[in-house]
């Protein structure tokens, strides 16, 4: 007998889940987005190289990805509430450590490892597990879109806020303020506290090992991971290296700043739209379309003469497509595998995203140093986008068929 992978009984109200989940993600994603603003003040005051600071942030991204599956596993097992509490505490300690670390190794441990772990415990994978378990499949993709849009808004909002804090309070006090602010996640976590699961409440009970074997052996999961890898590669390469690309081509720094603001603004619309569309059309086509459009946008950007206008148009388009892969990717996971291990599986898919991010940043710098231009990496991003568009097409969105154990 085949058991459906998705049977849910809504328990927390949708409004409560969306409000608390959105605020958690806004806070967590927002604070981390402006970390680059501390590069100058910290390296100048501590006398460190920029490489030391950059290394810590690179470690943070890897740590976030590596801790994701574990945080998700714990959230699925103990409930997101406890993981969010621990995550908020780690985040606050990480920010305090950033402010007080007196040597580069300690800074890497606090700003890199600890803050990365904290982000794994307070961002999408953990919150999406609660959404998956409490919001009916008929509105799930939309709800994920709302939450992703909130995270995008946090990124957009916090850059000017953090810049203001550094300017008015000093870089250390600014970090103390953020450490206090991130503790707001703790009371919000109470709003995401789920009642204990009844045995079989979400369909057949499945062990962690069995869920992992099932997912990693399932072609659609592998394809989703491959697509998300490309998402990380493209987004982080563009976010990190585009200002340098514009500088090399003689554009003013204001153009780069406006471009980042436009990416932030359109990212909010893009994530919401992707979540809403995921409710109305097959998500594989949506994902395929997003990756294809990214490639088209990059080709057009590289083909037309570079000007402030071309940069702004590219920033708006690529901003619209920026994190728009997040809601449909996670909604497909819930659709295929159900919600029992959703945060853990979301964590593994996100790990693939972070490996792509790491390669996007690293290869961008490496190939630039080797060739004196970003051309190869831009075209690599285009080719990967085409590949991601193709690999998402055969993804099967229907619930995986599981054979129930038949009693002897």
């Amino acid at each position: 007998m085949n058991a459906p992978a998705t049977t849910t009984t809504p328990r927390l109200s949708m409004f409560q889940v969306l409000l608390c989940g959105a605020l958690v993600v806004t806070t967590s994603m927002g604070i981390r987005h402006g970390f680059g603003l501390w590069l100058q003040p910290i390296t100048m005051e501590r006398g460190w190289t920029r490489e030391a600071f950059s290394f810590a942030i690179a470690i943070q991204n890897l740590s976030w990805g590596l801790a994701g599956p574990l945080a998700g596993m714990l959230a699925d097992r103990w409930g997101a509430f406890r993981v969010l509490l621990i995550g908020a505490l780690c985040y606050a300690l990480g920010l305090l450590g950033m402010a007080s670390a007196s040597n580069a190794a300690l800074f890497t441990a606090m700003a890199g490892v600890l803050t990365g772990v904290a982000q794994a415990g307070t961002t999408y994978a953990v919150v999406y597990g609660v959404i998956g378990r409490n919001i009916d499949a008929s509105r799930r993709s939309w709800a994920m879109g709302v939450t992703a849009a909130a995270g995008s808004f946090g990124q957009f909002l916090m850059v000017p806020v953090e810049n203001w804090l550094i300017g008015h309070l000093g870089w250390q006090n600014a970090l103390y303020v953020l450490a206090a602010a991130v503790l707001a996640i703790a009371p919000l976590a109470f709003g995401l506290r789920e009642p204990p699961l009844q045995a079989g409440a979400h369909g057949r009970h499945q062990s962690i090992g069995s869920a992992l074997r099932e997912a990693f052996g399932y072609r659609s999961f592998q394809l989703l991971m491959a697509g998300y890898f490309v998402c990380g590669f493209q987004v982080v390469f563009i976010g990190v290296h585009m200002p340098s690309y514009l500088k090399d081509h003689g554009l003013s720094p204001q153009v780069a700043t406006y471009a980042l603001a436009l990416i932030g603004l359109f990212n909010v619309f893009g994530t919401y739209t992707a979540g809403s569309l995921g409710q109305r059309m097959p998500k594989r086509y949506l994902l395929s379309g997003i990756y294809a459009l990214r490639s088209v946008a990059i080709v057009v950007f590289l083909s037309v003469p570079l000007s402030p206008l071309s940069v702004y148009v590219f920033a708006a388009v690529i901003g619209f497509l920026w994190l728009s892969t997040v809601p449909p990717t996670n909604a497909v996971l819930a659709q295929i595998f159900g919600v029992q291990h959703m945060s853990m599986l979301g964590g593994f898919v996100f790990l693939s995203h972070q490996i792509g991010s790491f390669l996007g940043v690293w290869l961008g710098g490496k190939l630039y140093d080797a060739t004196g231009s970003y051309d190869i990496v831009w075209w690599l991003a285009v080719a990967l986008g085409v590949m991601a568009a193709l690999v998402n097409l055969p993804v099967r969105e229907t619930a995986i068929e599981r054979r129930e154990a038949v009693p002897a």
Partner: protein
Amino acid sequence: MKPLMRRSLLGLLIAAVLGLVFAAYAQPSLMMELSQKLWACF
């Protein structure tokens, strides 16, 4: 309040908040500071 009006008001509120944040980026002082910090990375 009718659902349509509620949705419209919510939409206006969101647009206003997003517009305000974007206006913050466009302030010359912030623009210059961000630009300098951004350029200093390269």
